């Protein structure tokens, strides 16, 4: 049935459609609706879906790990500050190979920042937020229907790669209401089942030891620490890296469109790509949906056809840095900071950087008279 669905709700419905049976979370704007919906769903489906409102995001993330090892497809949702608290657990899930999904509904940071305003400042936190080296997979939809589909993809990729997959979103995508038919979308979904045997359903006589510390996992030394064996580190690290890259290769999700005859390619993603839509007449668009690993071949292939590349994003050039690295050529940046994601800000920035001006917008002097406090929600 076609009906009005919110972005956050689509994420939850996508998770359930993908087989999720456990949610742990902590309230934080603008992801809280997912928590609310999960609790209501769990109350109505107690036998098939379990819910935990944890004491903090650290507990949520670790509960997701425990639930996943116990056999449930598990996920959590949070926003920037909570996502920071989850980083250690995400590193653990990367090391141990815990299939799980972490939704990060971005707002303006750092710290508490502007809690109700949209931002895209966690792009690099997803990539490098935990200690050590790992190869994360992350997706970022820009609408309600896509949020549903991409959530299912995130769960499937998590199962296939046995890793914590990050589902990015932002205040606007999360609170966008669009008319979609989720029942129809659910009808012929590809859902990847859990392959790894859950806890205590292992091969009899060979109990596993899930450890954040480097251990020999098989062979004559199985169960012994490998904390000073670089060769074992290389084996496990590259095994995971190759697996993640291979699985990510099955999800080369992006959009290349708008006016392909133009000379300027705009790279943007998430809510910025929706706000920038009025530029369709004059510019070409590249919109990555899979944010990590960065779509290098696709970017190279598309970018060579354009004279200028401008990355417009609600952070100070985080994705632009990656595009520049991949393309080995200079890209222009339009940072939309402080939650000001508007077509006017985009047009001003585009005009400025294409005319050779700086990425930094002109900043008005602080007013002398007292300003009324910002209303909650709109600023």
């Amino acid at each position, binding site marked *: 049935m076609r009906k009005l669905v919110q972005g956050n709700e689509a994420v939850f419905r996508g998770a359930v459609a993908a087989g999720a*049976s*456990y949610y742990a979370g902590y309230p934080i704007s603008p992801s809280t609706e997912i928590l609310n919906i999960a609790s209501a769903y769990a*109350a109505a489906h107690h036998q098939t879906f*379990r819910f935990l409102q944890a004491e903090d995001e650290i507990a949520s993330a*670790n509960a997701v790990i425990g639930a996943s090892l116990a*056999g449930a497809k*598990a996920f959590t949702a949070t926003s920037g500050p909570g996502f920071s608290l989850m980083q250690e657990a995400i590193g653990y899930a990367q090391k141990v190979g815990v299939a799980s999904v972490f939704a990060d509904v971005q707002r303006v940071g750092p710290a508490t920042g502007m809690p109700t305003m949209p931002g895209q400042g966690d792009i690099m936190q997803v990539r490098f937020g935990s200690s050590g080296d790992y190869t994360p997979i992350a997706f970022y939809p820009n609408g309600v229907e896509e949020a549903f589909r991409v959530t299912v993809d995130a769960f499937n990729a998590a199962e296939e790669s046995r890793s914590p997959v990050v589902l990015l979103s932002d205040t606007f995508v999360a609170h966008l209401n669009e008319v979609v038919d989720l029942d129809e979308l659910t009808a012929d979904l590809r859902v990847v089942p859990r392959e790894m045997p859950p806890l*205590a*359903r292992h091969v009899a006589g060979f109990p596993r030891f899930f450890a954040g510390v480097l251990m020999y996992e098989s062979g004559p030394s199985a169960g012994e620490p490998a904390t000073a064996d670089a060769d074992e580190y290389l084996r496990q690290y590259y095994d995971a890296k190759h697996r993640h890259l291979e699985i990510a290769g099955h999800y080369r999700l992006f959009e290349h469109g708008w006016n392909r005859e133009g000379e300027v390619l705009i790279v943007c993603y998430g809510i910025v790509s929706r706000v920038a839509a009025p530029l369709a007449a004059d510019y070409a668009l590249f919109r990555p949906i899979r944010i990590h690993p960065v779509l290098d071949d696709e970017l190279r292939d598309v970018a060579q056809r354009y004279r200028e590349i401008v990355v417009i994003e609600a952070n100070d050039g985080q994705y632009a840095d990656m595009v520049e690295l991949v393309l080995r050529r200079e890209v222009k940046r339009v940072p939309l900071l402080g939650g000001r994601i508007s077509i006017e800000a985009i047009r001003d920035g585009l005009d400025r950087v294409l005319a050779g001006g700086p990425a930094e917008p002109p900043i008005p002097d602080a007013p002398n008279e007292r300003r009324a406090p910002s209303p909650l929600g709109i600023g």
Partner: protein
Amino acid sequence: MPELTMAELGYKKHLKVELFPTIWCPGCGIGTIMMQLAIVLDEMALDETNTVIVTGIGCTGRMGSYLKHESVYTLHGRTLPVAEAIKTVRPELNVIVVAGDGDTASIGGNHLIHTIRRNANVTVLCNNNEIYGLTGGQTGPTTPTGTKTLSSPIGNPNTPINLQGIVRSSEHALYAKSTVYHLQHLRNVIREAVEWDGFSFVDITSQCIENNGRRIGFASANEMLTFYRKTYKRAGKGAQALAQYEIGVLYPAEHPSRNGQTDGAAGNSHRAEAQAQAGPGTEAAAIPSVPTEKAKPQASDEEKARRRAESQKKLALMQRLDPAVKMRVAKGELTLVDALREAGIDPAELEA
């Protein structure tokens, strides 16, 4: 040498003895806790198909790798969220958390408070050695005031955390305290805790001779154990709280008469009774996140008494066997019935 019970001989099948010697220093108390846990697992017939061990970071955390059970070696301090989620998803599993005092009460302190509040049906065995041993001996949350450590060279200025008070703040949680000197007591309280339907916490005083004991004046682990023997006393029956040097079990308020008892006879059918009175579904609808299923084998007091009598009868019959035959029975090479028959004892005496 004293006679060994079947359980004491059988506990080794719960240990990966091929990985021994363990990483723990000579004289460490953790091995004692592991042995008593293995004996309890053996007594309760818990095995790798129904029991999961969750451990934290620190010396104690390594116990999971020596037990023949599936185990999760979590991040520092995060045992409880992981354990609670496992229990929620798989209520049929027994989830036993083994962690040190730093892991449980310091970095994981917030999780401890809230896991108790939610009455997660898990058992925590806290190796309380009053020190951060793995990092060389820094002040921990349970280090007594005045103790000199690497991080408090003129003596710990703070008072230790009140674990008993934290656990007893719940109406449902079971709190037990024991030491690695009092082996039988320790084994009994571990068993009580594992059988408890709801959150249970065993606060186990143990010695860290290398990174604590020597600095505070003990010459050997044996001296520390002697200290435990001389200072720790069993709490009297009906005790409402344990003093600093008292060991025992404290049940929630509904079981005042049981406080101090450690004979394994105190079942806890109160939750099931309360649920039955409230009618099916009420609890589930009210708090969907809390695992309410009765997963652990809950025996009534009569059932437990019967089991105990049975095992005593078995033991008495075992005593009449040749020691070599007894060993074969304990190893499982020979059934007790066959052994009795060979020895000319009527197996029907088992049923009598």
